[in-house]
């Protein structure tokens, strides 16, 4: 079954470009226009990965990640942040505090985004298999 990815960005063209690339790679891609919409979608869709922008209306990227980590059902959801804020955000802080697995700066390369997504989800697969093997 195709992995489900939730894309969250208030810029429609960014969403469209990332969605196009990931869908062509075989992923099930859902989109949201802001953090609040993304949070409601996470509760319903149960995605395998979240890719989110940082600056968004209603609920920004950091607020969204905070909610995801504080909810036991979603605490382990892999998160990749796509942001134009660049050096204003400390990647180490994001990784340490909020377990953001990767940060990609805008302007971004859809190729690089796809590569990062592939790596993260295949690692998750390995981790899940290893945990399943131990349980067995």
């Amino acid at each position, binding site marked *: 079954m195709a992995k489900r990815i939730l894309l969250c960005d208030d810029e429609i*063209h*960014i969403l469209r470009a990332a969605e196009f690339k990931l869908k062509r790679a075989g992923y099930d891609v859902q989109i949201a226009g802001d953090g609040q919409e993304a949070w409601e979608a996470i509760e319903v869709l149960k995605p395998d990965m979240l890719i989110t922008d940082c600056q968004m209306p209603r609920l920004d990227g950091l607020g969204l990640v905070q909610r995801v980590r504080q909810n036991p059902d979603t605490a382990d959801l892999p998160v990749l942040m796509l942001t134009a804020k660049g050096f204003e955000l400390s990647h180490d802080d994001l990784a340490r505090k909020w377990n953001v697995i990767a940060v990609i700066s805008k302007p971004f390369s859809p190729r690089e985004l796809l590569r990062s997504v592939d790596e993260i989800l295949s690692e998750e697969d390995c981790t899940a298999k290893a945990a399943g093997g131990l349980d067995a």
Partner: protein
Amino acid sequence: MSGSKSTDLLAVGALVLCSAWVIAWAGGLVVDSGWWPLRLGLLGAGLALAGPAAALLLHRLKRNRRAAEQHFEALCRLDPRDLSGDGTSDDVRPLPADNPWCGIAGRVRQTLLEHCRRQQELEHKRAALEVRCHRATTQSGQITSIFSELAEPILAVDDYGEVVLANRMAAELFDFDPENAGSRALAQITECQKLVNLLSAASHRKTSGERVDEIEIGDGEGNSRWYRVTATRLAAAEEETDPAEPSPGGAVAVLHDIGNQKELQKRNAEFVSAVSHEMKTPLAGIKAYVELLVDGDAEDEETQEEFLDVINGQADRLQRLVDNMLNLARMEAGVVGVNKQNRPLNEILEEAVHVVQPAAEAKQIKLAAELSPMYLGVLADRDMLLQSAINLLSNAIKYTPDGGCVTLRSRLADNQVRFEVQDTGVGLSEEDCQRVFEKFYRVKKDKNMASGTGLGLPLAKHIVEDVHGGRLSAKSVPGKGSTFIITLPSAGQLT
């Protein structure tokens, strides 16, 4: 020999002879009694000589004594203020040399004159010191006034960290009474430990020089401001005699308010961050779609065209952003030439309506112009005022849903020319009504309704208010619509 001395000698001589003859006659040394008429005659002659001589001597004695008395009395009355420049006095002349008192009188006179001269000098010095003291007191008062009224807070502490001096601004900043600040430790007056440490470090420096730091100081009510604090060591009195062994003498701190500077720095940083974000967004779109095309992800022509349109649109967006930023920057810097002339406002507004008409028609928005039939003259730069009208109309059209209404009105009101753009769009909250004129500010919930740089309204505001002396304001009801109002001085009022 002087004449008076010769006279004295003759008189004395006559007295001595007469006395000798009297004594000899009385003693019977002349034994021949037959010479008694001669003896009587000689006695008479001697007495005749001795009498006047004695009278003369007596007179002279009295005269000298009187002169001496007068001299001493004059000396007693001598006032140091009456001395002449060479330390003498015309009221006390020396006794004549033939006066037997002249020697001692002269010494007394000299001594007294010397004392009087010294007294006079002391009096002069006292007067000079009094003048200097008065000047110093006046100067001290002026310095105290100036120090007290200096715009920057200044305070000094001793080597124990106790406040020894503070001006009014320092007292207001730290909320204490400068009259009663003495013997209070600085750490008791303020909670700003950084300031206390800075002064302590400056006070204990072994060399002269200052320490500078930027410190945020609170007022105890939740407000704080940034100050650049310059702390300088105060030299102790002992250093003047032994500079090799500097001892702590305290420190003085001058606090320069840099709150506005910090605010400006913060706003500049925010502006750069906003510009960076605004420029990266269309660039991200361009890069992403170019890469999709390069990688062959757009397999069909329709998708390719779609991607190319997006790239084109984002490039246009970037260009508008750069143009608006440059225009705004140049206008704010005063680089753009302003050509103000008396112009009919309605003509400019009609042209603005003509420019935005296609955009209104594309959204089926009813665009109406209800302009005053009166001549409304304004002293304006045509291109700039046209731009601001276009920006307002364009904004109204963007944030009005399809099928809505945008109305442009103009009229004369209270000797001012007024025009307004009213729409039936999404409306603004009260906060957004204020913030919508900030650079790059875009109402978050409406961002996706239309593209924009967030510079159109700030540009219009600058043109109306800074260039033309007018006013631009907004009122709105969320969900119902907004009205942007521009007022300008009437050209009739200005001429």
